[in-house]
Each structure stands twice: as structure tokens, then as C-alpha cells.
């Protein structure tokens, strides 16, 4: 019962801009696809939304997820571990990302976009899931490290842009290829894809662990 009540308040105190931003992008891509009326571009737009846009939006929102909470000092004075607040807030953003990815895939099925080039249904989920986790971890961690949400947003956006612009270099480089966020969507048949996804997943896990440690040092954020 307590968990249900807690969840209920967690939703009531949820900042709805975190929902509207990714959903707006989702609808924007759908509208562009419909206006375009060229079925061959459907696949391109759909995978760009899944593998490139969703991770960026998730990373940006994660950077804003914690330090903007107006009751931060009250929550720090409660016996609730800081890591729970972190997981609660980032978890909400993750669910929104998953929801948007789901909507796009339903829409793809509706307009008969074939995503099978990205792999089976599980591989398609990894296309948005892995880079989203990496950028969400990065956004959270950098915002906490710099004690400023905007720092996190700027760093996430820069890393996303650099990776996008230098994707060719990353794909060719013997170490860079493991850190290419967009390998799943750009080079789905790469033999390094599984290793890349594993490295990014472990990297995300390390970033979230570091974020928990940082967020536990509560006085830094007041």
C-alpha cells in the first residue's frame, strides 16, 4: 500500500514537460513521415527517431531529473536513501522513452515500415535502449558532478553531436567502435555490434553507480 501511495505521489509530482518533449518529437517524426509520402524514407526516419532522437531526449531529461526537485533538502533530511530518488526519477524517464519507442514501432507497423534490417524484435529494442541508457547515465552523472543540470545537458548534447558527426571515425577506430552510441542503428550488421552494446551497457551501469555515490553526498547540491 505504501509503495502504491508513494508511486501515486511520484506521478503527481512528475514534471510533465518530461513527457511532452519526447512525445512531441515522436509525433513530429510521424507527421514528417506522413507528409513525405515516400515509403522508402519511412525506414530512415523511423530508425533515426528510435536510435538517435530518443537517446538524446532521454539524456537531456535525465540531466534535469534530480537537481531541479524543489524539495531536495527535505528529501535529504528524510531516511529515504538518495539512490531511491535517483532511480525513481531516472526510471520515469526510461519508461517514457520506452513508451515513445513503442508508439513509433506501432506506427511503423501501421504504415508498414519494415524494421527487420535492424534485426529481430529484441535487436530493435536494443537500438534505442543501449544508447538511451548510456546517455541517461551520462546526463545524470555529469549534472551531479558539475552540481548543475545545465552542465549535464550541454555535455550530453556535445557528446551526442560529436558521435553523430564523427560516426565514421568511431566505426573504424579499434577502440572508438565500442563507444559508438549509434552502431545499432547505423551499422546493424557490424560484427562488433554485440561487443559495442555490452561495453555501452557496462559503461551505463558504471555511470549510474557513480551517480548514486555522488548523489549520496547530499550537501554538494544545497
Amino acid at each position, binding site marked *: *500500500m*505504501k509503495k502504491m*501511495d508513494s508511486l501515486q*505521489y511520484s506521478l503527481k509530482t512528475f514534471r510533465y514537460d518530461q513527457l511532452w518533449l519526447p512525445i512531441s518529437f515522436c509525433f513530429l517524426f510521424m507527421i514528417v513521415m506522413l507528409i513525405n509520402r515516400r515509403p522508402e524514407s519511412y525506414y530512415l526516419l523511423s530508425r533515426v527517431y528510435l536510435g538517435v532522437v530518443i537517446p538524446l531526449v532521454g539524456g537531456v531529461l535525465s540531466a534535469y531529473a534530480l537537481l531541479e526537485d*524543489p524539495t531536495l*533538502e527535505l*528529501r535529504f*533530511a*528524510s531516511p529515504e536513501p538518495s539512490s531511491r530518488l535517483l532511480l525513481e526519477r531516472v526510471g520515469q524517464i526510461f519508461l517514457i522513452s520506452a513508451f515513445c519507442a513503442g508508439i513509433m514501432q506501432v506506427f511503423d507497423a501501421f504504415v508498414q515500415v519494415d524494421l527487420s534490417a535492424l534485426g529481430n524484435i529484441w535487436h530493435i529494442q536494443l537500438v534505442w535502449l543501449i544508447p538511451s541508457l548510456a546517455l541517461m547515465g551520462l546526463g545524470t552523472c555529469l549534472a551531479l558532478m558539475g552540481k548543475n543540470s545545465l552542465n549535464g545537458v550541454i555535455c550530453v548534447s556535445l557528446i551526442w553531436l560529436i558521435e553523430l558527426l564523427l560516426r565514421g571515425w568511431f566505426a573504424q577506430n579499434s577502440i572508438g567502435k565500442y563507444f559508438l552510441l549509434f552502431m545499432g542503428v547505423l551499422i546493424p550488421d557490424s560484427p562488433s555490434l554485440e561487443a559495442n552494446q555490452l561495453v555501452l551497457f557496462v559503461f551505463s551501469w558504471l555511470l549510474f553507480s557513480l551517480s548514486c555515490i555522488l548523489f549520496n553526498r547530499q*550537501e554538494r547540491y544545497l
Partner: protein
Amino acid sequence: MIKIENLTKTYHSNGQTVTALNALSLTIDSGMFGLLGPNGAGKTTLMRILAGISLPTHGEVTVDGNNMGTEKGRMAVKASLGYLPQELGMYLELSAYQFVDYMAILKGMNDVTLRRQSVERSLEMVGLTEVSGRKIKGFSGGMKRRVGIAQALVNDPKLLIVDEPTAGLDPEERIRLRNLLVKLASNRIVLLSTHIVEDIGQTCQSMAVLAHGQVIFTGSPADLIHSASGHVWTLVSSSTEKPDHDLTVVSMLHLSEGIQYRLVGQSVDQYPQAQITPPGLEDGYVWLMKDHGHEVDVN
């Protein structure tokens, strides 16, 4: 009981090390305890350490035997803590009831019936029962402050820490809040931090004054008043020039015969017409600060 021994707190700001608290020692027993000092004296830092939010750099702080230098100790204190921070942030879209209920959940109050009763009781204590269903965003500053007090009380805390609770309140609300705090202090420690001297005088049996991260006075408000005996004068002057000679003008009043100054200082040899006056708590505070070389900048 709160026991603070040689507490030092430093932090880094813009590449410099700032000492917020410097080898501070203090013992606080049950009842209402006032913490007075100018802005930047270290009051909020001390409050945050006692609330388990900040960590001591050196020294030892124990609250009811729990060492605040350890995670276990801090968690134990937080479980029975009521805390009202100086800058109170709230979820404005929630109603007063919902906000206090949410804070109760975060404080680990699992039993739904018990929690509902506690929320209703704490809202009643601050006089918000009638408006408990209204969204906080429509509340005045004083009402928001009362919601803040209600959330601090909801878990019936053993230690209640209130940082500048009367800031921004109108006189009626200030009196109501002070009375409530005194009532609550009958069976717990209530730690009141403020820079409003009057609030301490009206509520606390014992107090401490902080300046530059150090305790420069501990005792009762009466002791602080007594310390200024023989150092407070009134002077009526037709001159518009303020008295100087190392005297602090605590108040000024325009009378038909001139301006009446209330002065605090070592001596008024330069003003033979000055008359000695019984000190008040504010005079005691000003004299204490002067006596310790922390000139109160009111001139």
C-alpha cells in the same frame, strides 16, 4: 541530548577553502534551544549537520547517542527528525494534505491509518485543517510556512529543527508559530535558528550565539541581557549627527525635543547627558558582538 565537540566544517568555494564552523562545542538538552547569529555565522551549516545532510569535517556530533559522522547514525536520527529548512521548496500542485502525506511516506510511515491520523493532527496543529484540500500554489507565504511545519511534525519527531521559521511571516503568524514551537518543546528538542532576536527571547530557555563559525555565548536569554548591564544608554540630542565614539546606535526615535538614541558601548564619557538604561535582549546581542570584536554594522 545533542552533544557537539570540536566541530569543524570546511568546504571549497571558487577554489578557496571556507571554514563555516570552527572547533565548535555545544550541548543541547530537551526543550527549546535558540541559535542566534548574523547571516553567514554558520547556523544553517550546523543545522544541516544535525539533520544528517552535511558531514562534519572534524569533531564529533552525537544526537541521542547516534554519531552523525556515520551513515548508520545519520539514518537513525533522520528516522525521528522533523526539519524545516530555511529555503522551503514544495510541490505546488499538491494540496497541503497530499504534501504532508507524501513527506510522511518518505519518512517511512507505512501504516495507512496511522499516517492519515498523523497528517490530520499535524495540519490541525498548524491551523490548516480547513484548507488542507487546497493546492499549495494558492497559499500565502505564511500558510506555506505552516505546511512546512506540519510536514516537520508529521512523524512526531524527537528532534525538531527549524531554520528561520518566522522569516516573511506577519506578526500574527509569527506569534502563532512561536507559541506552537514552545508547546512542542515540552517533550522534545526544538532547535530554533534565527537572526531575529525577539523570536529567541520570546521562546527559548537556553540559547547560543554564533559568529564566524564559533560559539561566543551559551546560556539563557536573561544571561545575555544581564551581560549588557551598564553598557546601554539613552541620549536625547538636538543634533542630527549620530553619536559615535565606538558606540552602536541600536534605535532612534524622533521626539519634540530632538532625537532619542539608544546606545550600546563601553562608555559614554563623550556624552555626559546620556542616561543609563536597563538592557533588552537585542542590546545584549549587540554588546556581545561588540565585546567579541564582531561589530554589528547598523550605523
